[in-house]
């Protein structure tokens, strides 16, 4: 067993700090402070993506030959720590964390050449077209159809919970290309070069936090080229399962959770407990905090076991355990945030939340974001395969690898 410590890492940390302290614009910082979702405000996060790309730091987890940084695990963790410590907006995952790694693994050379640079540079934003109104947890039952027609497919149907489709310029999606066999067998994975093909309509959906983050996308005889297919026709389920490993895989989410705790501890300094002291000195609050912090620590240990390639991480249920833990910890933190804010979290402050709005919030930054963050985070146990589905998967291998 071995964990690196030492002056080289501290020098690296200093380099990271120096960059993160100076490179982001005020708007980018504001977007990070006003974050109420895993999906950061679009314009600012993409601007930040491009700045990181210029520095060469947009994709620490990618292989070096595709633009990765070649950092050690310790370095990647330090980068994530300092990044989150400054409340910088996390880059959007659809390109860098999902379709990018998928193409690196199984895309054709042509697809890699065509799409990876745009993803890495932050020029493209990809929407993910998976769920449908009648196919949520039962994703394989999807019915949005793609019928071959010459070199093209003609798509009919709709997709829902398509995050930021109204901001996207590209889209990857699952379509039904065969209805005859097992439902998993007639699915195809497609890349769409555009999201404004004739016949496509996008309807943003207002979420329970009051913001349009998800969309519904309608397809009415939309013609797209077959060259956008990843893998074979009708083999899209295998492709999607491969991508899922990346979607649920993670690697350095614990710094985000730790940062949540830091913000709570800051706020607790000036929040009365109702029992004579500030929350920061309240034994009950500190116990609850300690319990949550210890659980976040275990998740961090789990993440590090994973990225370090410990044999336990070969367990097929590892990505599902990762997704389950991360989402449930996120929710617990968000609850604690709203608890610190009390009634100060109740006012609706949509205007003040808009980046660049110049509207003074009624209270602190945390009081501004806590409630919408809590509400938005209810989605974390629903999306990317509900936690019920994850537990089904975990149970299948429950006795293995012990």
């Amino acid at each position, binding site marked *: 067993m071995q964990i690196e410590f030492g002056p080289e890492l501290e020098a690296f940390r200093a380099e990271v700090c120096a960059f993160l302290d100076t490179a982001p614009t005020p708007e980018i910082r504001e977007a990070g402070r006003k974050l109420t979702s895993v999906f950061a405000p679009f314009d600012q996060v993409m601007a930040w993506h491009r700045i990181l790309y210029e520095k060469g730091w947009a994709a620490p987890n990618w292989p070096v030959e595709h633009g990765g940084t070649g950092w050690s695990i310790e370095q990647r963790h330090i980068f994530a720590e300092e990044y989150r410590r400054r409340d910088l907006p996390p880059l959007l995952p659809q390109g860098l964390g999902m379709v990018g790694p998928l193409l690196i693994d199984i895309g054709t050379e042509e697809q890699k050449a065509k799409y990876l640079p745009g993803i890495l540079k932050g020029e493209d934003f990809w929407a993910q077209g998976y769920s449908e109104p009648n196919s949520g947890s039962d994703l394989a039952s999807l019915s949005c159809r793609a019928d071959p027609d010459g070199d093209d497919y003609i798509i009919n149907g709709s997709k829902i919970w398509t995050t930021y489709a109204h901001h996207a310029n590209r889209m990857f999606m699952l379509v039904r290309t065969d209805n005859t066999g097992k439902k998993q067998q007639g699915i195809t994975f497609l890349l769409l070069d555009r999201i404004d093909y004739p016949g496509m309509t996008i309807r943003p959906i207002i*979420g329970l936090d009051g913001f349009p983050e998800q969309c519904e996308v309608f397809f009415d005889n939309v013609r797209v080229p077959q060259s956008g297919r990843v893998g074979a026709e009708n083999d899209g389920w295998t492709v999607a399962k491969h991508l899922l490993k990346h979607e649920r895989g993670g690697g350095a989410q614990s710094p985000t959770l730790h940062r949540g705790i830091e913000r709570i501890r800051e706020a607790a300094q000036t929040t009365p407990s109702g029992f004579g002291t500030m929350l920061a000195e309240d034994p009950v609050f500190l116990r609850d905090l300690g319990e949550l912090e210890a659980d976040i620590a275990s998740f961090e240990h789990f993440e590090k076991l994973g990225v370090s390639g410990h044999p336990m991480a070969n367990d097929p249920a590892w990505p599902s355990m990762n997704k389950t833990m991360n989402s449930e910890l996120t929710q617990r933190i968000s609850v604690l945030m709203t608890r610190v804010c009390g009634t100060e979290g109740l006012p609706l402050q949509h205007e003040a939340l808009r980046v660049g709005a110049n509207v003074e919030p009624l209270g602190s930054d945390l009081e501004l974001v806590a409630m919408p963050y809590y509400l938005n985070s209810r989605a974390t146990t629903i999306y990317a395969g509900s936690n019920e589905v994850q537990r089904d998967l975990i149970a299948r291998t429950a006795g293995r690898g012990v």
Partner: protein
Amino acid sequence: MDFTFTDEQQMLRDSVSSFLQRSYDFDARNKIVRGSDGWSRAVWGQLAEIGLLALPIAEDAGGLGGSAPDLVAIAEPFGAHLLAEPFLATALLAAPLLAKAGSGELEAIMGGSKIAALAYEEGHGTADPSQIAMAARRDGHGFVLDGEKRMVLAGADADLLLVVARLDGKLALLAVASGQGDIVTTGYQTIDGRRAANIRFAATRLGGDALLSVDVEPALREVLDTTLLALCAESVGAMGELLARTADYAATRKQFGVPILTFQAVAHRLADMKIAYTKARATLLYTAALMEARHAGERDMAILKGQIGKLGREVGEAAIQTHGGVGMTDELAISHLHKRILANDALLGNSEYHLRKVGNLT
């Protein structure tokens, strides 16, 4: 021992429910909440007409002298229908204090033509009057107010504002006319569709007649207990609605070719929702009966508020999870009901506060 509503209470409840079903369904309610006022004077007039605005007022002050169970009978449907009108602010918090002070404004308030609000809260959910810090300073025959009241329900809409402040160390009640110049009122909507305001006083001068009560604490505590009961009844009403809607959804929404209720994880979550709702309602009804019998102590009120806040959150979160994506949208009542429960929990001390109080009181 009997926890059933009387025939009169059941009739009252039915009439409120059917009025709301008729005139205040989810779409109508959203239209009102999203309108420029955020609430409806027409609906308010209807509530006055049914007599609800006079219900919490003692009979000798010209009200209907409603009991705790009477209040539960109307507040459960209020919660189920997400009422946005300032019933708590005006009829429960302000009016009974005006009645005790013998104010001449009471008639207009019970009649629905004037709105009154109580500036009590000072931040984070002031759970106990002993936490009130804002002071009124004597100045000649008048008074000077400095400081800020926050989350004043209906604070920007009130014709008459009652301020709780310390005067000579005790809690006093002072009346402030709407629109006085040196008061900064910042109105806003809350996550659950109510209207509230932060109100800042900077050397605000009030005349001698502003002082309504010099030692308002006992009356205030009574008013806060009644409001607490109503908040809890609203939340239980919202929980019932969440349970019914979620059970329906689970029985009809199909995944993997079968209703999702077929999945034991969904079924057991529904079972837990039902247990939570049943416990919550049992405590609500029991506490209302205790209050009516004048046997409800501080610990009973803390149990009520603590349990309903905790159980309500469980039910709301379970309802969203069971609905999945659509539960996350603004389009369904689910998230709105949950937000009402959350807001009610935060007001007047949240469940953490009250459950801890239970432990401290043997």
